[in-house]
């Protein structure tokens, strides 16, 4: 299953991601810049912020209350389809997902 990250400089990076892995783990494993995941997916650092391609947002699952609050603590201001990527698990539904990595 494939995920594509669109980097701040406009280039793209794609990687195979196993189902059940979080998109933060996948980004860190693939060295995607600006996705650090410093709290290990504990919803405490907001350093795994991504903006989901609006066409995919419905398939990424619901936004929890804590995630919603932590999205106000991201480095780059949140967008309507912002998510913390440690809260999204890879699944067959998400094959082909496109994520924009915020920041400069």
């Amino acid at each position, binding site marked *: 299953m494939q995920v594509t990250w669109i980097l701040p400089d406009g280039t793209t990076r794609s990687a195979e991601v196993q189902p059940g892995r979080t998109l933060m783990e996948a980004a860190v494993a693939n060295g995607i810049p600006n996705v650090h995941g*410093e*709290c*290990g997916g*504990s919803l405490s650092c907001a350093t795994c912020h991504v903006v989901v391609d609006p066409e995919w947002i419905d398939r990424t699952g619901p936004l929890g*209350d*804590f995630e919603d*609050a932590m999205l106000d603590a*991201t*480095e780059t201001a949140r967008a309507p389809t912002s998510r913390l990527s440690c809260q999204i698990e890879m699944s067959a539904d998400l094959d082909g997902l496109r994520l924009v990595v915020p920041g400069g």
Partner: protein
Amino acid sequence: MTVWTPTDDGHADLTSHDAFVDGVPHNTFARLRRDDPLHYTEYSAGRSFWSVTRQADILRLNRQADLLSSAQGIRIEDQTEEEYLARRTFQETDPPEHMMTRIKVARAFSKGVVAGFEPQIRDLCNQILDRALDCGSFDATREIARELPMRMLGIIIGVPASDLPWLVDKGDALMANTDPDFTDHVLDRMTTDAYRLMPFNSPAGAELYDYASALMARKAAAGDTDGVLHMLLRPGPDGSVISDTEFRNFFCLLVAAGNDTTRYSIAAGIQALCHQPELLGQMKAGGIWETAPDEIIRWATPALHFRRTATRDFQMHGKTVRAGDKVVYWFASANRDETVFDDPFRVDLARQPNAHLSFGQGGPHICLGMWLARLEVRILFQELARRIAAIEPAGPHRFVRSNFMGGIKTLPVTVKAA
């Protein structure tokens, strides 16, 4: 990978604060990482505990807050339920309860918001350096490292500058409660338990409680209700509010957690400048400021450890940790792990990646103040490097007597202004 060359027998008693008076007993940690990464550490003053010393093991465990709980104490000492309840902050809670408080203050300490302090911090740094550099020879911990976080604390919690030295003395008495230089109530030498319900077992906790109440009353009277402290008082998403005790404990936590840690990061960085002369030139040349703060903070590792308690039995490295056992994450060891860091005993300002654990990375309690600390460290060293031509030791440095707070408490230096 650097091969560890021991300079002593590598058998320091990790439960003894005296084993840390000449700095972290790195020989012991190197031996444990290699031979016994989950070491059952005998503790004569309380229940023995497991010492986790490898970086990868701490990362793996720290994220599992359901297995390794913060809700029975986070330092090695044992606490009764009564003591725990009286002294706890959100740092001693587990998710999801922990998140209820964390989300209230997360934005105020986020990278983006904290970046707004940059001009103010630069200004403070230059005021501090104006005074210190005039002296030529001075104690860099006292004159530089101690000053910046103290003054930032004043800005963040909104207290008058004249109160700051008092507040910081009290914070020191909490964090360094095992060093007679910082407290008259040295924890492991105390015979009375009169303060056991106070933060960090310290009478300073009681004084900070009173200060917090008076401060909030003053702020309320002045209509000043939008600081960090007030954010904490707002109801959470489920309508819950924090108790009085919890609020006062959080106040103590801010005074304690943000001060000594940042101070000792700055001190360790200055000590590194003295002992690795090439660093000053690298700082002057620039180009390392994205990575240098984390390397300085790795080098310093002010929080030597934090503790958790196992909620279920589990196996690791062929041993069984039982429910109720204390498990100590030795960040001081993880940050010198030779399987993670090339040449871990050298400061490399360009180190990248730098998977250090000084901030308790990898778990829900990752330092709330990490962006502020990184920013303070960066700006202080940018200004220091710009303003000096040379710096050298002017005598031996001395460490805090503590197996919890790692820091150089006196650092005599001589500087030549640029």
